[in-house]
């Protein structure tokens, strides 16, 4: 185990470089997917199904075709045929089948965005409607055991005899928690500008989290060589998982451009983003914790039920967090899935850990109360020596240090555990804690590095900056690895013709890209060294590939950890919940840029707060999909919802991770937040809310 030295904060943040692309972003110069100037460009707008299941029997496009400015109406009858890929959601306009409400059934291309939308309004679609099934229920007769859970974890795991251990445990907690459908909603909608060259090449300005894979999929769909597809993603307005693979926008834009022989822009409307770009599945989670009277877990069972579509099986890895967070000699995790007439769920920030931690960390809070133990102390008592399922040692595990440091900074020690007894005027006040964790992984990436005779180093790899600050941090990593000031480094990212690299996802972007750069820098310096520092006129170049390092089996379990502390105030009359304080203390390996790292952690925690209190896709039982279809109906935390959210981290040196020594920080911030809020709400009010979000109606009349 590696040593924790001291929390690093304010000074580090102040000393860290500001974003290299910051000036472009505050002046409006940064260009996103549909903002690059393109000659002769036209617009496309999708028409989506109004029924949840059935067949399209007729599409009457006569009025649309007669609408001024409309150039084409594509439907399953006339759209270009697509090649196969393993994402059925991308087989757009290929058949008359309707698998969910909000699925694309036509695409209108117009001279302007106004004419495309007017044309879309004029398209008449008739359906042969079938009865739909859109409600997730743990007892659904079609529940099945998926082959694996995202991205490749075993579906179920079991050690020992958890049922017997639970039955004989002195303290038993058996509770069911639910989380609703949640939507990513990056502020930049999924958007693409597509143009075909005379030579059959396809150029795409696209909003995604990594265009290496996007180019490959597009090549397969359109029957092209990968090198004939060029995807450019200079600036991306957020993704949170929903832009990790190509989504309908890019396919539709390319189809439309092919059909009309002109470049096409397509930016999905906000309403489209409720059905077309993935979302987090609702979950039903049953937790059974059996413990000794002094709070030591003897049995831990986490059973999960969730949904997918009839098109594709996506099984969120919700219970995976319960495989490694705490020790327990007997344990089991299961995932069951049902195919409903709904859009296919997909990645949303910390898939698995985000909803899973709500259940597990709420249950731990309930267990602490049942054992009459402080919730921090309960967690400390269940700290495992090794990864409980694999038996591997942790490369570093500083959960306890995070809990202790957080408790100290938050003022946890003075806490009276009695729920519902602190009142400040009309406000009931309470505090809560939860653990955070996320896997620390790395994926193969390549980087091309060259040095010119002027000593300037050029770094090229297909990384992308979706707001995480990677452009800044990678410049720093390259400068450090080359032992040069940052102004001697040129970084090129966001272009599929650059060396292939990992997506900005799974908290693996920086660790994967940074490792390729560090390796490349070593090779380049060696090359320069062999020539005694003499750099030829046309420079020197290397390409590093980390595939080998990454694939080497590690003897360690590698995870980031953290602890989140929350204070809530609940209006005793209205049930309104306010969060005056949220503090996260994390142990995430090496932090490259404290300024952007803090922003990312705080951003994740803010999304977690939003998950706790606001976000809920309400199932439309009658018509399918969600009732709430815009940002007024689906509230995400706004300025007034967010007060003091702060994140800090412990200095952590971990040599068993990757060449950067970092664990990745994009996701851990959202893990545990909702439980910390719910636990604080219980402390404030005495009401245990086991269903997210913590709505007013769930608090009132139950205290």
């Amino acid at each position, binding site marked *: 185990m590696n040593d924790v030295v001291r929390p690093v904060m304010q000074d580090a943040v102040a000393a860290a470089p500001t974003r290299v692309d910051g000036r472009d972003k505050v*002046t*409006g110069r940064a260009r996103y997917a549909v903002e690059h100037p393109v000659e002769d460009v036209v617009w496309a707008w999708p028409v989506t199904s109004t029924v949840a299941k059935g067949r399209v029997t007729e599409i009457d496009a006569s009025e649309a075709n007669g609408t001024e400015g409309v150039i084409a109406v594509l439907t399953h009858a006339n759209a270009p045929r697509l090649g196969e890929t393993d994402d059925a959601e991308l087989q757009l306009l290929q058949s008359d089948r309707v698998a969910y409400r909000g699925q694309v059934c036509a695409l209108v291309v117009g001279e302007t965005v106004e004419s495309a939308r007017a044309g879309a309004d004029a398209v008449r679609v008739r359906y042969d409607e079938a009865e739909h099934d859109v409600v997730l229920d743990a007892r659904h007769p079609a529940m099945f055991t998926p082959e694996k859970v995202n991205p490749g974890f075993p579906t179920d795991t079991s050690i020992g005899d958890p049922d017997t251990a639970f039955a004989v445990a002195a303290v038993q907690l058996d509770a069911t928690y639910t989380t609703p459908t949640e939507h*990513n909603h990056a502020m930049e909608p999924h958007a693409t500008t597509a143009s075909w060259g005379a030579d059959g090449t396809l150029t795409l300005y696209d909003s995604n989290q990594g265009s290496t894979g996007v180019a490959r999929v597009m090549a397969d769909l359109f029957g092209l060589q990968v090198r004939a597809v060029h995807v450019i993603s200079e600036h991306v307005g*957020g993704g949170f998982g929903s832009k990790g693979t190509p989504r309908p926008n890019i396919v539709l834009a390319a189809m439309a451009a092919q059909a009309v022989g002109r470049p096409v822009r397509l930016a999905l*409307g906000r309403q489209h983003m409720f059905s077309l770009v993935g979302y987090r599945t609702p979950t039903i989670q049953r937790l059974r914790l059996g413990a000794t009277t002094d709070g030591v877990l003897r049995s831990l069972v986490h059973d999960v039920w969730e949904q997918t579509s009839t098109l594709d099986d996506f099984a969120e890895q919700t219970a995976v967090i319960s495989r490694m967070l705490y020790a327990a000699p007997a344990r089991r995790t299961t995932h069951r899935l049902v195919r409903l007439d709904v859009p296919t769920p997909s990645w949303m920030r910390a898939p698995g850990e985000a909803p899973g931690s709500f259940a597990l960390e709420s249950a731990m809070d309930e267990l602490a109360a049942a054992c009459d133990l402080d919730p921090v102390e309960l967690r400390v008592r269940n700290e495992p020596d090794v990864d409980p399922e694999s038996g591997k040692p942790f490369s570093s595990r500083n959960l306890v240090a995070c809990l202790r440091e957080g408790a100290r900074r938050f003022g946890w020690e003075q806490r009276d555990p009695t729920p519902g007894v602190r009142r400040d005027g009309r406000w009931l006040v309470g505090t809560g804690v939860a653990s955070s964790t996320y896997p620390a992984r790395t994926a193969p990436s390549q980087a091309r590095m060259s040095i010119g005779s002027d000593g300037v180093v050029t770094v090229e790899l297909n990384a992308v900056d979706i707001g995480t600050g990677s452009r800044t941090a990678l410049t720093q990593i390259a400068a450090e690895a080359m032992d040069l000031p940052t102004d001697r480094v040129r970084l090129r990212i966001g272009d599929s013709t650059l060396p292939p690299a990992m997506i900005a996802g799974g908290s693996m972007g920086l660790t994967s890209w940074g490792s390729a750069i560090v390796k490349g820098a070593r090779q380049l310096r060696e090359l320069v060294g062999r020539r005694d520092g003499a750099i030829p006129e046309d420079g020197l170049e290397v390409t590093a590939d980390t595939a080998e390092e990454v694939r080497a089996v590690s003897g360690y379990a590698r995870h980031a950890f953290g602890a989140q502390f929350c204070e809530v105030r609940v209006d005793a009359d209205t049930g309104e919940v306010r969060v005056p304080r949220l503090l996260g203390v994390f142990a995430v390996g090496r932090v490259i840029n404290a300024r952007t790292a803090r922003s990312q952690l705080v951003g994740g925690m803010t999304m977690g707060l939003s998950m706790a209190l606001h976000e809920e896709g309400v199932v439309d039982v009658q018509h399918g999909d969600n009732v709430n279809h815009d940002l007024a109906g689906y509230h995400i935390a*706004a*300025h*007034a919802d*967010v007060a003091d959210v702060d994140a800090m981290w412990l200095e952590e040196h971990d040599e068993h991770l990757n060449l950067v020594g970092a664990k990745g920080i994009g996701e851990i911030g959202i893990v545990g937040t909702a439980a910390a809020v719910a636990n604080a709400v219980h402390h404030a009010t005495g009401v245990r809310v086991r269903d997210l979000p913590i709505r007013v109606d769930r608090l009132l009349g139950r205290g």
Partner: protein
Amino acid sequence: MARMSLDLTVNGERRKVDVDTRTTVLDLLREQLGLTGSKKGCDHGQCGACTVLVAGRRVLGCLVLAVTLEGAEVTTVEGLADGDDLHPVQRAFLDADAFQCGYCTPGQLCSAVGMLREVGEGWPSVVTPPGATVSVSSLGPDEVRERMSGNLCRCGAYVNIVPAVLAARR
């Protein structure tokens, strides 16, 4: 389709444009004038990414038809800086890392500029105690949060935006 021509000033420059009567200010700026700094987050008045200033007041570009702007003075994020000299709000956003992806940022910036002016003119907000007067110098974080709540940030940069706005008060 009905079209109209109109004269307006954008970032200090007189522009004569011919617009589809359905065109919003946001689409006029982005698609016709090449000013893509103003962002389209929802096209529905619910996110604030399209916030621009008309005669110094905040408006949602996606909810205003271009044809209503005859003779108007429009300022977008591209017009905030004075050449290479950033506006104090832009500078403060950079220093405080008050953004991540940057997509909500132009709206936040224009909104902050307009909001500070509203405060300077003594406009109260929901959180202003009854009878109290507000001023730019006495503005606190709660007032900023309330007044900026029309500008969503999915990256969750709020806790950096509020101090940036406060730091930018001249």
